[in-house]
């Protein structure tokens, strides 16, 4: 008996492969498969194993994997499609060879990024010498055809419009809340117990409303509040930002950023401290105010040009008014 049950791993393999009389059974548990998939993912994707995860499911009889791992990014890394295709290939191969399972579906989720050349990355490349080669490293040769969809810039324009105007969320929320509070209070007043408890307050309100002047004041406040809400609802609500859409992106610049940059440019041009230049940016023009150093003339045109250049470099041209203060500062 003891002689016949002695099975070496190689023999076991033979038993399973051939259709010889069965002398044992090899079962690969789900947990083992998952660990195997994680290991394969880590090796094939060249990522630390602890950053990879795998889940198994069935998909019409085949094994379906859901893999999560970081993406290799940075100059020199392969493209997303190249990385995911290579990973899929390796997983299907690996699970077929090592666990004899047919994988029909692999969902890949990139949950983070490994910068190409980072330490973890370098370590992984050192450790897995062989797999480092087979991820197709297209690098610069991959000519990313970025399809210029015709509606792309329209989409950008839409986003830009949205970014430059106030959403009016807070006023709308406040109005809805106020409506709720008033309505609930009115309902509560219908209960005799509540009405009795707040009688002192309602008496005051009644006295105020009894006089025509009191009524008019209350109504006038209501009318003004209503007009204010109407204006909030209708006015464009332009925010203190400006923007543009070009071939690749929608750019939105807060007016404050432009003002800071223009003030710095003027200060540099005139050799002044930044605190001596103040810039206010309005919709169409910016106004700069310079407090000169006593006894040092200020190059006004030059300052104007310097400020305009800042706006031009951003692609958001803006007229500039420079005013030099009558009195300088001794320093």
């Amino acid at each position, binding site marked *: 008996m003891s002689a016949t049950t002695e099975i070496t791993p190689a023999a076991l393999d033979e038993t399973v492969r051939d259709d010889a009389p069965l002398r044992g059974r090899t079962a690969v548990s789900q947990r083992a498969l998952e660990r195997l998939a994680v290991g394969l993912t880590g090796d094939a994707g060249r990522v630390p194993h602890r950053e990879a995860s795998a889940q198994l499911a069935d998909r019409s009889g085949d094994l379906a994997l859901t893999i999560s791992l970081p993406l290799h990014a940075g100059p020199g*890394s392969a493209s997303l499609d190249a990385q995911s295709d290579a990973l899929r290939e390796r997983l299907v191969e690996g699970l077929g060879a090592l666990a004899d399972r047919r994988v029909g579906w692999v969902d890949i989720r*990139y949950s983070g990024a490994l910068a190409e050349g980072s330490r973890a990355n370098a370590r992984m490349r050192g450790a897995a010498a062989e797999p480092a080669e087979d991820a197709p490293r297209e690098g610069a040769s991959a000519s990313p055809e970025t399809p210029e969809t015709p509606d792309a810039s329209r989409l950008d324009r839409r986003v830009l419009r949205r970014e430059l105007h106030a959403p009016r969320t807070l006023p709308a929320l406040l109005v809805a809340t106020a409506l*709720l509070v008033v309505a609930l209070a009115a309902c509560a007043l219908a209960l005799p117990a509540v009405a009795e408890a707040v009688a002192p307050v309602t008496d005051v309100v009644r006295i105020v409303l009894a006089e025509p002047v009191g009524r008019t004041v209350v109504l006038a406040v209501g009318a003004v509040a209503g007009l204010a809400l109407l204006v909030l609802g209708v006015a464009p609500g332009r925010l203190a930002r400006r923007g543009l859409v070009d071939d690749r*992106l*929608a750019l939105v610049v807060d007016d404050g950023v432009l003002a800071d940059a223009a003030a710095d440019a003027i200060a540099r041009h005139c050799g002044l401290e930044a605190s001596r230049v103040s810039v206010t940016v309005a919709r169409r023009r910016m106004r700069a105010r310079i407090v000169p150093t006593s006894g040092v003339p200020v190059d006004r045109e030059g300052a104007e040009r310097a400020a305009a250049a800042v706006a031009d470099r951003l692609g958001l041209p803006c007229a500039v008014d420079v005013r030099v203060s009558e009195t300088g500062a001794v320093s």
Partner: protein
Amino acid sequence: MNAVDRALNRILLVVVGLVLAAGCGWAIVVEWRPAWAADALRWWDASAAPPLSELASASIAVPGAGVLPSWVLAAGGAALLAIVLLVVVAARNRRGRSSVALVRPGARGSTSVDQAVVGAVLADPLARRADVLAARARVVRVRRRPGVELSVSVRRGADPAEAVAGARDAIREWDRLTGERTPVLLRLRDRSLLERLRASARVR
């Protein structure tokens, strides 16, 4: 926050504002009865005021709650409406956000990219620049497609155009990596109040 929410916000403001302004304004006119509004007031007294005051003083028998004055029912209706509005606003509040930057279906499984990757590819290289205080990227949905909002705070004294150029480099890298053109909104953000209060120059 998408275009529909913005429209809803404004519609709510306009409707409530109109009702409030017109109602209170007309009540003032009725109170003071100016000569220029004589015709309108005559019409009001004859045909509009009686049914309204009748409605206001009416009471309706509600099964289970006894007899309730009509204004309580109106208030209850308004409260219900306000609750619905608030729930809608709360439910739609973060609708524009998304955690998935890209989904690419394939014949043998889909490939998706999380927001974290966008942060690492687009925001991190910018945040490492000396002229940038902070950079953040998040995924927003624009017309049901994912787009990226890249928000950058530029250090005082730096040229914002250079930060924009840096962002363009990062976007080029993203385009190369993904092979497609994700809409990008680049926002150069003003320094926050806190940063404004700090000294603009510092020595290390």
